[in-house]
């Protein structure tokens, strides 16, 4: 979708739409464009509201699709989404990876948490590859994933890290569940939940117990220039402030950055999850992951604080594992370790 039409202020469009000296068809066009300004302004909240409204009818529709379809589209270096459908016969390695890993993430959510796609109703998981020119990013746009190829210097193909694909899809899950905003602690929690489930997916796919995992985010997308300077990841959930992280983060609440980007302060709950998983042991998705999934799906709370989420995880630990006190103890140790009491 190209959006240059929205750059002209609505007041100007309204004035042209009412200008009797202009031809009728031009005035209609200006009026139509003006109406889109409002649509775009509300699109972000509408995405969340629409997603949240699905919660009430989710039990009815979960049987509609047993597993989500995972089509892939090729942007061919443009920024128009979704792009051109990639045929099933395509040999594009990025396309195969994007579709295959999206299906694997869906399987991860189904096997580990009994969830059917991001909306728990079998929503089709659309991936667009080769987005933009040398685009150093991947994102969830409220409806689908998009992956850049990287500049080949600092970053390479963003589909090369399976935790990145798990991260982006999890933004969809969060949108349909907790409905977190994107500022302050809620925004940081939003990003942390994507890193947590992204790395958990990576561990699940690799059959790694918590002690065998590296807890790195984005290790597969680091380009030669980044590696040459000693950066082996974007973020390290075990050591968010370490020098080998290209985007180092605060490791505890004492270093929380007021007004900081969600990707900065997410280091705090990221490390809380790591500390919990290490204290509880085993496979992250079996106990620690189930506690976080229960907290994530316990109802919408767009402005949730770290403390409120921590409270949810404690309640989930008690409810899910009443006979295993090590789980609640691990959850408590994790939050205490990052200064969120």
């Amino acid at each position, binding site marked *: 979708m190209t959006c240059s039409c929205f750059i002209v202020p609505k007041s100007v469009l309204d004035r042209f739409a009412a200008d009797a000296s202009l031809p009728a068809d031009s005035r209609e066009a200006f009026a139509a464009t003006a109406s889109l300004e409002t649509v775009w302004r509300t699109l*972000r909240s509408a995405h969340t509201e629409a997603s949240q409204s699905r919660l009430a009818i989710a039990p009815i529709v979960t049987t509609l699709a047993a597993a989500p379809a995972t089509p892939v589209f090729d942007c061919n270096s443009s920024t128009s989404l979704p792009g051109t459908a990639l045929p099933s016969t395509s040999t594009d390695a990025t396309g195969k990876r994007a579709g295959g890993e999206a299906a694997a993430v869906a399987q991860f959510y189904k096997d580990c948490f009994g969830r059917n796609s991001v909306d728990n109703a079998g929503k089709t998981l659309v991936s667009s590859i080769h987005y933009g020119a040398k685009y150093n990013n991947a*994102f969830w*746009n409220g409806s689908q994933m998009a992956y850049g190829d990287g500049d080949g210097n*600092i970053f390479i193909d963003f589909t090369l890290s399976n935790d990145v694909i798990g991260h*982006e899809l999890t933004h969809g899950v969060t949108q349909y569940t907790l409905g977190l905003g994107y500022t302050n602690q809620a925004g940081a929690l939003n990003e942390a939940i994507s890193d947590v489930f992204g790395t958990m997916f990576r561990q699940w796919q690799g059959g790694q117990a918590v002690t065998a995992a590296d807890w790195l985010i984005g290790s597969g997308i680091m380009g030669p220039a980044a590696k040459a300077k000693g950066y082996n990841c974007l973020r390290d959930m075990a050591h968010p402030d370490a020098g080998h992280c290209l985007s180092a983060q605060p490791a505890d609440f004492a270093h929380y950055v007021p007004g900081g980007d969600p990707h900065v302060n997410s280091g705090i709950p990221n490390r809380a999850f790591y500390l919990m998983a290490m204290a509880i042991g085993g496979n992250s998705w079996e106990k620690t992951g189930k506690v976080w999934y229960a907290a994530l799906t316990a109802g919408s709370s767009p402005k949730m604080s770290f403390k409120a989420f921590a409270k949810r995880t404690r309640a989930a630990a008690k409810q899910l594992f009443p006979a295993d006190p090590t789980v609640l103890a691990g959850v408590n140790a994790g939050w205490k370790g990052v200064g969120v009491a």
Partner: protein
Amino acid sequence: MDRLKIERRGGFTGLPARGEVETASLSAADLASVEALFRRKTPPPPSPGADRFIFSLSRHRESGVQTMDVPEHLLPAALAGAVKEELP
């Protein structure tokens, strides 16, 4: 001659990027887009979803400096492509 300073934040990587563009180098369409952005009375809303870029766009003129946040879907490609990441 006006100068545009562009600072990018956000995105999955969280790695900031910066760049500068002389307005004289912009196409007429891109220049019109920039002027329309600075005529806005309220800042545009962020792009929907998560891990999207946000650009801080500063226009340096003899009369002073104007700055506003612009979501990536509203920034002309010539400006978005003018920023470069700097490794810390």
